[in-house]
């Protein structure tokens, strides 16, 4: 990433508010996304991926609170002087459950044209042709007929395309995609990913792609951030992270991936499971499952270190950076 970032996240934390005290869910998340960049945020369920995205969009439920700083194109999303409504106008979000993310009693055309008319302030007549154009752009056949259709008449993959069209309607510089392909079959998954890639190139739109699927991240992302127990443990160019992982969690995950053509042996698995929020250890979150953990790991949380192109948070990295 050489250009100035469009999304700048600094020490973003999210906590669950409760009467017995606030429970941290995401802690000190810092990363940047450049214009037109495909950034993958990878982690297991419960690692805080989705909550981080919702925090950026200002869509957290009232029992969740975000702290820290995040800015999109210089406008604060989170933190001092934040006006999420204004700032996020440059961002759009798509979700895992596309069909449920569309209003069941409103037609596709209604929802698209409504967005075009209220957000882009288009006239009724131009909104219709813009809507048809957007549906065609996301690869849907018969866009004119589709305007009258309802979400329940379409497949999950088609609805995800409609969601992408809705996202494009706000002309975002950043598209936040929260596991958009996780509930789709593999063929559809590849098609949606190809579409996102194409839109990114055509429109110069950056993508923050949240996934638990390392293979998808490896294949598509320019840069990748690995989340574990609410913290970023490794961040860097996809090439570097996958070929030379530094954090032992990343290394363990990569080792557990099946490889095409490799001899059929039992895949090494990471022992144990992700600690739940509230049960995080005081030091490094991964220490209880880590083979290299020492007393210092259990006592002190490792600081983020390394080079701008490849950073990590580990006292005992797998290898030293060259």
């Amino acid at each position, binding site marked *: 990433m050489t250009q100035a970032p469009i999304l700048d996240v600094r020490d973003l934390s999210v906590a669950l508010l409760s009467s017995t005290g606030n429970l941290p869910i995401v802690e000190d998340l810092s990363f940047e996304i450049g214009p037109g960049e495909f950034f993958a945020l990878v982690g297991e369920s419960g690692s805080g991926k989705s909550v981080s995205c919702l925090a950026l969009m200002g869509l957290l439920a009232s029992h969740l609170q975000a702290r820290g700083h995040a800015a999109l194109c210089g406008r604060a999303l989170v933190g001092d002087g934040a006006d999420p409504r204004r700032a996020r106008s440059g961002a759009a*979000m798509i*979700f895992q459950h596309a069909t449920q*993310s*569309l*209003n*069941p009693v409103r037609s596709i055309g209604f929802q698209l044209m409504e*967005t075009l008319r*209220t957000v882009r302030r288009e006239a009724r007549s131009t909104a219709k042709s813009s809507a048809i154009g957007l549906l065609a752009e996301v690869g849907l056949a018969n866009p004119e007929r589709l305007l009258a259709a309802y979400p*329940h008449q379409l497949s999950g993959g088609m609805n995800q395309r409609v969601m992408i069209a809705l996202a494009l309607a706000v002309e975002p510089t950043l598209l936040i995609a929260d596991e958009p392909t996780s509930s789709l079959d593999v063929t559809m998954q590849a098609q949606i990913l190809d579409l996102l890639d194409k839109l990114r190139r055509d429109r110069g739109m950056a993508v923050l792609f949240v996934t638990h699927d390392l293979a998808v991240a490896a294949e598509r992302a320019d840069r990748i951030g690995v989340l574990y127990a609410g913290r970023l443990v490794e961040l860097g160019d996809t090439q570097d992270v996958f070929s030379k992982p530094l954090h032992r969690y990343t290394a363990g995950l990569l080792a557990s991936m099946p490889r095409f053509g490799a001899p059929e042996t039992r895949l090494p698995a990471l022992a144990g499971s992700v600690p739940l929020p509230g049960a995080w250890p005081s030091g490094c979150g991964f220490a209880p499952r880590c083979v290299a953990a020492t007393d210092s790991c259990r006592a002190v949380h490792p600081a983020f270190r390394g080079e701008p192109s490849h950073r990590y948070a580990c006292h005992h990295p797998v290898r030293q950076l060259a």
Partner: protein
Amino acid sequence: MTLGFIGFVAQKTARALLTVLFIVTLVFFVLRLAGDPATVLLGPEATPDMIEELTVRLGLDQPLWRQYLAYLSNVLSGDFGSSFLHNRDALALVMEHVDATLLLSGAALAFALLIGVPLGVVSALHRGSAWDRAAMTFAVLGYCIPNFFLAVLLMLLLSIHWALLPTSGGGSLAHLVMPSITLGTASAAIIARFTRSAMLEVLGSRYMRAAEARDLPTVRLMVHHAFPNAAIPVVTVVGFMIGGMIGGSIVTETVFAWPGVGRLFVSSVANRDIPVVQVIVLLSGAAMVVTNLVIDILYGWLDPRIRLRRAAG
């Protein structure tokens, strides 16, 4: 799609007519089992000859199935028989009282909707707040308070203590206020609760979050996205309520001496005035059926999933 919708309405209408026929039949047989009208009409001093004569005159000596068929063909040709007691056309007699009952039910329903829907929406939007707690306390109270008690309470306060409204009777808007509050309060409470839970469910849905992410104005989010979805369960309860109000207005009409069908019904049952009772039961049954029909059609209009499924199958 339009043709599908017409088919959907036609199918619903046919089913509604069948229901009305079932009501007519049931009412006919149940009433014949409820006691001999001739004996009641003539009183304790009547001789067996007099009872015999009246039985023949009213056609009650015929076999039950013949009476039923005769009644059915009469009803189909618009003849509902004449009142045993008042010796005049039963339908005309009931129709004289229908306006008052419809006016009362309509006013009560309007009261229930005007109070219940806003209360439910405000509670849902400010969940857990003092507003929410106050509204839900009202809902519980409103539902629990018996309507005859509420009627007396209103009379005591508004008529006797403050002398604002007439205690009973009909004929002016002032007469309508207390009966409609009495009849509508429980419904307002139910509507408030249903609206609240329906709104909460919709507000927590994925599509509302997605719409919010698109930065749609709040008013638009509510009016075009939340309300149409939340209306579906509310419409269901309101449908049940309308039928219930016509039946439930018997107590209210009696307490406030409202000149409606409810009071006529009570006196007709007491006097075994079978033709009048039959007309009233038939009318309220038909009202229930029509309401349900309207609700079904309204569903199709509100929810494309129902409309299009019917059109396809």
